[in-house]
């Protein structure tokens, strides 16, 4: 009951912020439109929809970090969280209440991206469902990053870290917008040590139906998701203890 009430509040707060809708849905759709238009006017296969759609889906998840981080940081800085910490809500209620509403949002965001991808020829088949499912560990990872950032940073800092830094890191080091082999060397090694390129590779493999490639990449993403989420829970519980 308590967790449900808190999760419902998280859901409403995020969906009623027009900036969240603009960044969460609008920006990925603009990217799809722009990149597909570029692809239509160049002779090489740079942003083919089979690669672009899973890429935009993974990149779009970085905005979940911004949503969750901003909400938690604003709750902290406005004393709202002080009020909630004095209530019978437990740390489990808080973590679930901040996290669970974002998972269906992640799935909705992915589904909308896929629906628009159909316009540019993305095949309508069961692989779409697989793609949505494969993105769940990456969703947990990005929500965890937001929870961690919101627990330790102010809302302005979250805006800078999750809104600018994270989106850039996940863009540059994911291989979504260019082939990492073009740079290679240390840059590629760093990228493959981080989870973003693995989230993209898993999504790309799901879209192509290459099932045997998905799992090794998901293990990377899942391990990072677990580690980041554990750190986020620790940081949040530390805040709760005053």
């Amino acid at each position, binding site marked *: *009951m*308590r967790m*449900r*009430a*808190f999760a*419902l*509040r998280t859901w*409403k*707060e995020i969906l*009623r*912020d027009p900036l969240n809708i603009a960044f969460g849905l609008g920006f990925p759709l603009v990217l799809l439109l722009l990149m597909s238009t570029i692809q239509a006017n160049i002779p090489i296969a740079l942003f083919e929809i089979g690669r672009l759609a899973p890429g935009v889906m993974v990149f779009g998840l970085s905005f979940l970090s911004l949503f969750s981080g901003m909400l938690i940081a604003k709750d902290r800085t*406005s*004393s*709202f969280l*002080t*009020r*909630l*910490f*004095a*209530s*019978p*809500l*437990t740390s489990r*209620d808080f973590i679930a209440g901040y996290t669970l509403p974002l998972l269906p949002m992640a799935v909705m965001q992915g589904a909308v991206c896929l629906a628009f991808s159909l316009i540019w020829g993305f095949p309508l088949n069961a692989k779409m469902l697989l793609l949505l499912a494969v993105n769940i560990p990456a969703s947990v990872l990005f929500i965890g990053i937001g929870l961690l950032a919101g627990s330790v940073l102010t809302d302005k800092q979250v805006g800078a870290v999750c809104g600018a830094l994270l989106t850039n890191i996940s863009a540059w080091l994911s291989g979504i917008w260019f082939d990492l082999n073009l740079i290679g060397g240390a840059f590629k090694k760093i990228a493959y040590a981080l989870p973003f390129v693995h989230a993209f590779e898993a999504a790309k493999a799901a879209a192509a139906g290459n099932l045997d490639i998905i799992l090794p990449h998901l293990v990377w993403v899942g391990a990072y998701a677990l580690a980041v989420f554990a750190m986020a829970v620790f940081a949040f519980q530390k805040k709760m*203890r*005053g």
Partner: protein
Amino acid sequence: MNAIETTGLSKRYKNKTAVDNLTFAVEKGTLFALLGVNGAGKTTTIKMLSCLTPPSAGDALVAGCSILGDPQGVKAKINVSPQETAVAPNLTVKENLVFIAGIYGSAPAEAKKKAAEMMAAFGLAKETENKAKTLSGGTQRRLSIAMALISRPEILFLDEPTLGLDVLARRELWKAIEKLKGEVTVILTTHYMEEAEALSDTIGIMSEGRLKAVGTAAQLMKLTRTSSFEDAFIALAGEAEAEV
């Protein structure tokens, strides 16, 4: 019967003692004001009593539950209106109230009923469907206090409830607070002497983490041989410990 009893309550940080060996009691159904200059330890005391931060030493019984042994028991019986207005900005007035009732365990239908009662009691009925972020400062503060009361707490902590409000909004809020007397034990912190004098049954004056004196406004003036409560406060805030 006492709503709060503290014993040697202390809070120490690395190089500073914020609250030092606080022992006092608050009678049930009364309004107890904690006064002190900035850094006197008022907010830290409230944070310890509402289980927001653990004490370094000592304990307190709040509504019969130990803040050390049964913090969940304490949390179920109290509510807090923090210093800054603490409302969910994108939720309507009604949704804010239903939300708080929900996290204190009310079923949705019961929460809606309680919300309607609170909106009527605090003059918020016309604002039911307005988002909290669109309300004036005074109305947000009324909503914040209504949110603190919707769980029907035995003890209500009001941390600087009228800070930043204009004189009309402040007087309106005083009326709402006065109505609580007898039903709810209220612990109020404030910087406004006239507020403490007008609303409180008992006043505790804190300085440098210690409780310097406890009594009614008249008793504290008599103790310090001053003709105004403000003079009594100034005399006590820097004086040696005194008991009335």
